Each structure stands twice: as structure tokens, then as C-alpha cells.
């Protein structure tokens, strides 16, 4: 398995509170992604990064922000959590020398009550 660690793995938070999910990689891969997984929707891209301090929006970026100050860390922040953000969040990474294979972390289960 690719060296991807997500934290926290499980979290319950209240509506309106800020939440930060962390993705840490040990592969020195250039690209990092945040997806959310919801029944019937598969996985949808929230934000991605193509280098330190280089990020861009994905398909469902509203209500989320990201930061990447180091190659190994990619943070996803919900500034003010809403119930619609209850989901499973997956971090993923990919390099440029492996045929663009994307590897996924184990997921973070977030419940907003």
C-alpha cells in the first residue's frame, strides 16, 4: 500500500464548527487530492494540489478550503461544517513516473450533527 495516512479517521462534530482533515504521504508524490464518497454519487473531487502551495478546485469545492505547505501534507478544512458535509473523505496521491496511477488513503468518516 502507498504510504498515505489520514487523520482523524472518525469524527463527529456540530454544525457550524470548523473541521480540518489531514492527509500525510511518505511517497514524495507531486499530486494530492481530496474526494468525498457518497452513496449514488461515487467519489467526487473536492480540491487537488499539483505542488506545494499550488491548489485548484474540483467538482464540489463549495464550503471547503485546502492548503499544502509541504509536499507531504495536504489539509482539507471545512470552515463551518454543515450536515450536507457528512461523508467519507478520501485523500489520494499520484506521481508523474508511475503511469499516473492514483493511490487512496483509508478514508475519514465525518458526521456533522
Amino acid at each position, binding site marked *: 500500500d502507498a504510504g498515505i495516512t489520514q487523520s482523524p479517521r472518525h469524527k463527529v462534530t456540530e454544525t457550524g464548527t470548523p473541521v480540518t482533515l489531514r492527509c500525510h504521504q511518505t511517497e514524495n508524490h507531486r499530486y494530492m487530492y481530496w474526494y468525498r464518497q457518497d452513496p449514488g454519487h*461515487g*467519489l467526487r473531487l473536492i480540491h*487537488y494540489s499539483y505542488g506545494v502551495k499550488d491548489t485548484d478546485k474540483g467538482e464540489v469545492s463549495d464550503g471547503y478550503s485546502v492548503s499544502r505547505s509541504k509536499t507531504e501534507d495536504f489539509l482539507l478544512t471545512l470552515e463551518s461544517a454543515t450536515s450536507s458535509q457528512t461523508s467519507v473523505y478520501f485523500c489520494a496521491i499520484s506521481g508523474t513516473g508511475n503511469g499516473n496511477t492514483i493511490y487512496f488513503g483509508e478514508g475519514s468518516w465525518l458526521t456533522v450533527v
Partner: protein
Amino acid sequence: AQRVTQPEKLLSVFKGAPVELKCNYSYSGSPELFWYVQYSRQRLQLLLRHISRESIKGFTADLNKGETSFHLKKPFAQEEDSAMYYCALSVAGNMLTFGGGTRLMVKP
């Protein structure tokens, strides 16, 4: 924009029966297609990609550009194949667009 459609949310078969998980895509260019598998509450794992043309765990998939399809097939299903299967497409080299997924249940 590209789109991936998996028309079946659930596919239930008996052990030993053939399996076909359907995947259709919309994109005018030449995409790269993938199948990912997710076993219960685990991370997604790459099952296969069309450019490698290999068979993993007995599964194969052929890209049909005329029908814009990339169906996943296995001649004899096993109970351990029960999982969520996602078809995905990449056009920018490093981002994936996923279908909604199909849950495969293999009954004994």
C-alpha cells in the same frame, strides 16, 4: 465535461456465474479508463487500467471506443469478489472522474 455512468447500483450473482459490470463514459477525446475496487470499509484499490491490458483476479475489461464503454468481466464469480466497483476516467493525466459505483454481491 467528461462523465462516467455505471447503470447498475447493485448486481447480485451466484458463485460460479459470469459477471459483467457495465461502465459507459462520455468524452470526445481519448481518455484513460480504470476500474477500482473497494472492499468493505477499506480504501479503494486499483483493479485494472485499460492501457495495461492485463487481467487481475480474473477480471478483464476492454475499451470499446465506438460504444464508449469499458465493461468489467469475470467468467466465474467468487464470494471474495463481493465489493464496490468503481469505473473511472482520466483525461488530464492526473485527475479521476468516477462513476456512481456498482455493488457486487456474490451469493454462495
